[in-house]
């Protein structure tokens, strides 16, 4: 069977597209470079929106990228069940595109945060987290200026009640995110947004752990098993 093909979108200002592609490869899939200005997902089986500062994030994080040409195809495919993982800036883009609820605001402490962060996996049933167990603790890097997840009280209640909080921060909340939320999913579980960076924790040489690899192996296993 051919390897699963996982697209990684590069926007002007993306930083972590190469690391994301590397993580995809280490997880056993073929990374496919996708370009923001193309109306073409190249038939990929899943998509990663990487971290960085798409289009400079000059208005709000993710606000311009939401209108990138390739987002037209991505939004339609995500609504049809395509697995999509937005990491950091990718999470911000998914919220701006209304594939995920809420928004990411400047860190409550106003400083850029860069640290190895403990997390707890709250939902191990999404397309991107089946390789973990519920309650499993991970250490993966977080690095952002706009990581404070915010949503109205009703949305927060819905996310919690429907099991759509994918991961929460442990030990300390690095950005003032409501409910210590580090990641959420859509109702179907195919779209996940995550503020920390699993693609930076896939090899012991360069990361604090290899705890991040599970996000990528989860989706690959699902695709190969499909």
């Amino acid at each position, binding site marked *: 069977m051919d390897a699963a093909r996982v697209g990684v979108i590069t926007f002007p200002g993306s930083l972590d597209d190469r690391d994301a592609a590397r993580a995809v490869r280490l997880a056993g899939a073929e990374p496919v470079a996708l370009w923001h200005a193309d109306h073409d997902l190249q038939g990929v089986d899943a998509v990663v929106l990487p971290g960085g500062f798409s289009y400079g994030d000059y*208005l*709000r994080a993710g*606000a311009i990228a939401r*209108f990138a040409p390739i987002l037209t195809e991505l939004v339609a495919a995500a609504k049809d069940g395509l697995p999509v993982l937005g990491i950091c800036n990718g999470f911000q883009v998914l*919220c*701006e595109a209304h594939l995920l*609820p*809420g*928004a990411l*605001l*400047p*860190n*409550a*402490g*106003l400083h850029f945060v860069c640290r190895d962060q403990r997390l707890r996996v709250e939902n191990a049933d999404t397309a991107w987290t089946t390789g973990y167990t519920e309650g499993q603790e991970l250490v993966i890097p977080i690095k952002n200026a706009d990581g*404070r997840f*915010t*949503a*109205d009280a009703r949305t927060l209640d819905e996310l919690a009640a429907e099991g759509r909080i994918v991961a929460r921060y442990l030990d300390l909340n690095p950005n*003032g995110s409501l409910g210590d939320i580090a990641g959420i999913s859509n109702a179907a579980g195919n779209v996940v947004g995550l503020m920390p960076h699993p693609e930076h924790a896939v090899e012991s040489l360069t990361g604090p752990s290899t705890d991040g690899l599970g996000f990528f192996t989860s989706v690959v296993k699902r695709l190969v098993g499909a």
Partner: protein
Amino acid sequence: MARVVVDVMLKPEILDPQGQAIARKLPQLGFEGVAAVRQGKRFEVEVDGPADEAAVEKVRKIAETLLANPVIENFEVRVL
């Protein structure tokens, strides 16, 4: 040429650490009695043609499409 202003503010219930940082500095500068500061954004949009209802409506559409995120922000549109 119509000049239309869009004021964008975080919704009142949303924490504004930038405004708080400004408010904390004020007593040190001798400004007493300031209860709170909220920081927002102002856009000035120049539109071809007269400053009529159509111009305002166009800018309102721009504001709700791009300038403001209605999940977290409110906005007001007015002709300058």
